[in-house]
């Protein structure tokens, strides 16, 4: 295993910065995501108006991979409508499950492509997908 392919600078940066780790002023949706086997817990906050995710943030604890994955996801979905967010989710989960492998198809994920190598680490896959599953549940009723 090549560590530098996992803990890339971008992941380290997202994990450390805490840029998206905060409370929103008036979230319309707050949803907890849990990973019992790791003990990881995040709380995802969204402000959705007319099908558009105007803002997003999170709080909670977890490993660098889950924290970075959440932070990157928030960067991606901020300002997007829920249909687009679902497209991000499908693409991201497809990447981790190795169902989508073509770089062109992954391009929309932007920085989150950095998590591609997690698909080689079965023990850490759960960390990477936690926030994406949480988001999926959160926006289900908004579509």
């Amino acid at each position, binding site marked *: 295993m090549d*560590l530098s392919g996992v*803990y890339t600078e971008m992941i380290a940066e997202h*994990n450390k910065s805490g840029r998206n780790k905060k409370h929103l002023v008036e979230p319309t949706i707050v949803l907890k995501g849990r990973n019992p086997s790791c*003990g990881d817990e995040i709380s995802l906050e969204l402000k959705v108006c007319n099908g558009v995710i105007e803002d997003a943030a999170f709080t909670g*604890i*977890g*490993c660098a*991979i889950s924290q970075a994955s959440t932070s990157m996801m928030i960067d991606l979905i901020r300002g997007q409508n829920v249909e687009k967010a679902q497209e991000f989710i499908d693409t991201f989960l497809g990447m981790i499950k190795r169902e989508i492998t073509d770089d062109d198809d992954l391009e929309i994920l932007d920085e989150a492509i950095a998590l591609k190598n997690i698909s080689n680490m079965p023990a*850490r896959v759960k960390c990477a997908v936690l926030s994406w599953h949480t988001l999926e549940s959160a926006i289900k009723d908004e579509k």
Partner: protein
Amino acid sequence: MPNEYIKDFPILQKPMNGKSLVYLDNGATTQKPLSVIQAVDDYYTTFNANPHRGAYDLSVKATEIYEGARETVQKFIGAANSYEVIFTKNATESLNLLAYSYGMNFIESGDEIVISIAEHHSNLVPWQQVAKAKGATLKYIYLDSVGRITQQEIDAKITDKTKIVAVTQVSNVLGIINPIADIVKKAHSVGAIVIVDGAQSVPHFKVDVQALDIDFLVFSGHKMLSPMGIGVLYGKEALLDKMPPFLCGGDMIDYVWEQETTFAPLPAKFEAGTQNVGGAAGLAAAIEYIGKIGFDKIEAIEADLIQYAIPKLKALPYITLYGSDDLSVKTGVIAFNVADIHPHDVSTILDADGVAIRAGHHCAHPLMQYLGVNATCRASLYFYNTREDVDKLIDSLSRVRGVLGYGS
């Protein structure tokens, strides 16, 4: 320092991630020496049959191997009789057997069951269930600031209402050795029985059930060199005798009619169905291997490794250690955290260097809550570990923060 035992363990000879394996997750399961693997093979290539059930030679041999293993365990833990040794699949099943057969039948509403806050889920959730089903109270012995059980807590929590005290001899997170003799004394003085979870003690030092006067002892073979799928429940004859069977089926009966059954005497009463004879053969070989080394030697090696490791860990300013490091109450289990880094990341980064440790809650949520942490790292040693292993651990640990972009 060369270690003369490594050569006996095939897996320790194989590279992991291109590096030689530094296996520091012995609290989860240990590796197996060739003699154990060979004992199981010999059983299947030469003596395999269903024991107890056949009058033919092969079945007699299988019976001898199985009952011989029982006697080996008996001597190993100093039990008075071999039929006080019941084979199970692991410590968890042994504890559930006690919860179902003893707890569900001898605990009544208003009774108290006392356990410690450091229990593994396997010695905790079953008692929660018994307490709920029976309207009993589940009480916790808490730890002092360095993870020890004090006499004061023992006296405060074990009362006239206490019927069962179930406690681990060694914490699987902190490695702290609990004062079993003091607990037994207090428990017996109020008429309670004592169940000792020996999963983390029996592999590491001599546990003598008669000397400690404990009522029940449980442990798992796989944490002491033997294959998975074999565990032990020791119980005093008088207690096992008055308990109803747990699992019912073949071999645990005397007579069966359409609507009635009479049960076999010990130990068969508690061993329904075809038992894991290969596993028992492996456990016996493991006990023989341990016997050849001797617990004096095993304890000395582990003590040397902790004494070597603790100061080195303390020298790293970003490491937090949990629990006392007083060697008189500590085995080779070391819980720690690296500042700013989640234990799972620590484990992944160490893994890249071939260093296998465990990260998480270690099946001890209430202890994590009590310590105020979400998870920890854990390095757990055995006699085949070396100072070199410790060096590699320290070395790898010192790189962890850098990998995630933190200064050291």
